[in-house]
């Protein structure tokens, strides 16, 4: 069965430091992969997605992620964290049917705290 693992439940970084959030997936075919961010009391906002092409994906707010098939990973990175990045981050894999994907399986999330 498809699954997504985010090994880090909680991460604290200093403002200005670099960030990497880990995501591993289990999927039989080429996955469609997503990173979402959820700020307190807010819905989910799509940061970036991958479904084909260049394995290094650029997203909004200065985030990027790299798809590594050999490691079944899709880690999210940001070179310099801002205090406003404090939020919960979810990795998700899209389950594909007939060339399209029609539901998402989410990881358990990583809560990011940013120290001044």
């Amino acid at each position, binding site marked *: 069965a498809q699954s997504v693992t985010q090994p880090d439940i909680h991460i604290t970084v200093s403002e200005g430091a670099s960030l990497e959030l880990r995501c591993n997936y289990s999927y039989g075919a080429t996955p469609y992969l997503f990173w979402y961010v959820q700020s307190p009391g*807010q819905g989910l906002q799509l940061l970036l*997605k991958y479904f084909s092409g260049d394995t290094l994906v650029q997203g909004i707010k200065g985030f990027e992620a790299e798809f590594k098939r050999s490691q079944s990973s899709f880690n999210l990175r940001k070179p310099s964290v801002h205090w406003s990045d404090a939020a919960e981050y*979810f990795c998700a894999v899209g389950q594909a049917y007939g060339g399209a994907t029609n539901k998402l399986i989410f*990881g*358990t*999330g990583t809560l990011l705290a940013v120290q001044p």
Partner: protein
Amino acid sequence: SAVISQKPSRDICQRGTSLTIQCQVDSQVTMMFWYRQQPGQSLTLIATANQGSEATYESGFVIDKFPISRPNLTFSTLTVSNMSPEDSSIYLCSVQGLNYGYTFGSGTRLTVV
């Protein structure tokens, strides 16, 4: 990407009652999805709602507890029936947009007392 209006944004309900959550999209979409996010946990898909057909429920979710309507291509409702405190969660609707991106509503924060 699509804009989703979801309401109510939050509610406090008595156990044994029902709450209907509405999801309005600003464009026509084939599939709409309903998710539950229990406190401190990730999102779990409840069901997929296609216009003109019965919703498809995931394992562990049943129509009697979570009836869904999908009367047209821009609107859906999810009802949480006969509520108990265990139903206290955030409920979110979602649609698939262009290029496989998914948009989510801002969620309904439900507390059952």
